[in-house]
């Protein structure tokens, strides 16, 4: 369970260009549910998601992850928590060009120093589960949009996280691929994972598997 208390995020504090992306956000995200953060662009969705996902620290307020206060943890601890707890799916596949799909998928596990043979088996299993095992050795440039996204999903799962975070996952997908994506999300939910998605795509937030929709506007939660 993730709990946010009075979370604020201010950029360029003290400068004339100061602006607050989040104002006193209070939020509880329940486990084993699919939560959608919905709102227009500039509403602070991505900022909120990066705080929830331990990518950045709030300027003020508290963040608790499974009851543990993580607000003022140093970056190396946040990173450690992040890579074991969260899997990230970005708007763009954000794969690294020039190296193979398999290498890309294994990247998040490198700093953990796991044995290469184990890691490879894990990565191949993940790839075959999403039917792209045959692309493992090819470079990411040769993937289609859908394949690239599936590769990035496998990458998000490589360290076996129990919370999946997806930022506008369907923004660059056509309807058919978006449905495919939602099917994958459904599978996650069935496996007992917690899913948090930001989106303003009705196909996502109106989906039947979504348990809760949070509306954001101007850095605040509506309603």
């Amino acid at each position, binding site marked *: 369970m993730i709990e946010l208390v009075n979370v604020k995020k*201010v950029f*360029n*504090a003290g400068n004339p260009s100061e602006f607050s992306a989040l104002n006193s956000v209070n939020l509880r995200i329940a486990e084993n549910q699919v939560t959608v953060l919905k709102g227009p662009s500039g509403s602070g969705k991505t900022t909120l998601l990066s705080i929830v996902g331990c990518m950045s620290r709030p*300027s003020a*307020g508290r963040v608790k992850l499974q009851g543990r206060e993580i607000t*003022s943890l*140093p*970056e190396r601890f946040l990173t450690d928590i992040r890579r074991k707890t969260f899997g990230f799916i970005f708007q763009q596949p954000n794969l690294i060009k020039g190296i193979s799909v398999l290498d890309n998928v294994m990247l998040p596990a490198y700093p953990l120093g796991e044995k290469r043979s184990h890691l490879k088996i894990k990565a191949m299993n993940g790839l075959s589960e999403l039917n792209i095992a045959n692309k493992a050795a090819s470079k990411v440039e040769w993937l289609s949009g859908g394949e690239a996204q599936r590769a990035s999903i496998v990458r998000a799962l490589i360290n076996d996280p129990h919370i999946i975070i997806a930022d506008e996952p369907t923004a660059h997908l056509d309807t058919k691929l978006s449905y495919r994506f939602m099917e994958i999300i459904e599978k996650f939910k069935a496996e007992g994972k917690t899913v948090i998605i930001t989106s303003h795509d009705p196909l996502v937030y109106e989906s039947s598997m979504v348990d809760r929709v949070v509306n954001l506007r101007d850095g605040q939660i509506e309603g």
Partner: protein
Amino acid sequence: MILHPTVIANLLAAYIGSGMVLYAVFYGVQILRHWDIQSGHELQLVLERKTYLISTLLSYVFGLQLLSLFLYIFTADSLTPLFVGAMCAAGTLNVDGFGYPTLVLKIFSFILAGLWLVLNYADNQGYDYPLIKKKYLLLAFIAPFIILETILESAYFLNMEADVITSCCGSLFSSERVTGIGSEIASMPALPMMWIFYSAMSGTLLCGIFFYLKGLGGYLYAALSLLMFLVSLVSIVSFISLYIYELPTHHCPFCIIMEDYSYIGYLLYMLLFGAVVSGLGVGALLPFRQVESLQAMLGGFIRKLALASVILYAAFTALVSYEIVSSSLVIAYEVVY
């Protein structure tokens, strides 16, 4: 001054090292003044990022200090032919009053930089930067020594004048200066020193093993490891060098790092430096065992440090013993010169 490529390299290393430390101290002071772990403000985030820069800088300084220590001795050795009466690095370092103080400071600041890294490692294991203030105070303490070392080193090299032929007279110049440089180093008598070395080493190792197993006597071990470091240095001068050179009179602690002795000195000194840094690290970390955020890991880390120190000292002793056994020199009676 002697414009020699190696001298230039030495001075360059000293200035770069000082520059890095000054730069690190500059940010270290900012951290000491503005650090607030509870704050999520940008200043705090910036400072936390700076800690990465400072630890990277200090690791480089540590490496640079070690390399420049050896470079320094190399330089002294290669300048030997320029000075009347100098036989090896030991003589060259005596050319003016700055040679040996620079060397001592180099060793001292190397050990301090090593301790800083030990402290830094421990601090990085705690989720609330438990040692941050102490760490940067230590850094502020180290900086003057490194800067002083740079000043002394510059003075040493800049003051040097080679004894070259002057236009008026040739040899008179030489004979006047022939006793000017003390080439040999004063040394303890070999046989008694050997007894001291072996008994002190056994005591140190036992104490280290005891601490490793029972967790008691950590401070004692830290003190002993420092003492043992000094005893080992004296021993190198007093008897270890004799066995390596297979000469009953050559007490130089520097020639052993030269090619002629297959660079054995590097191994000896590395083992010794590693042993003293990890041994002192034990003492430096012991007071923080009760810090909440470090409780879980610090005990284990300190034991590992103690073990590393014990192993390094044991390896040093084994290497020394091997050199003694395989040497063709036999010290049956004391040679007094």
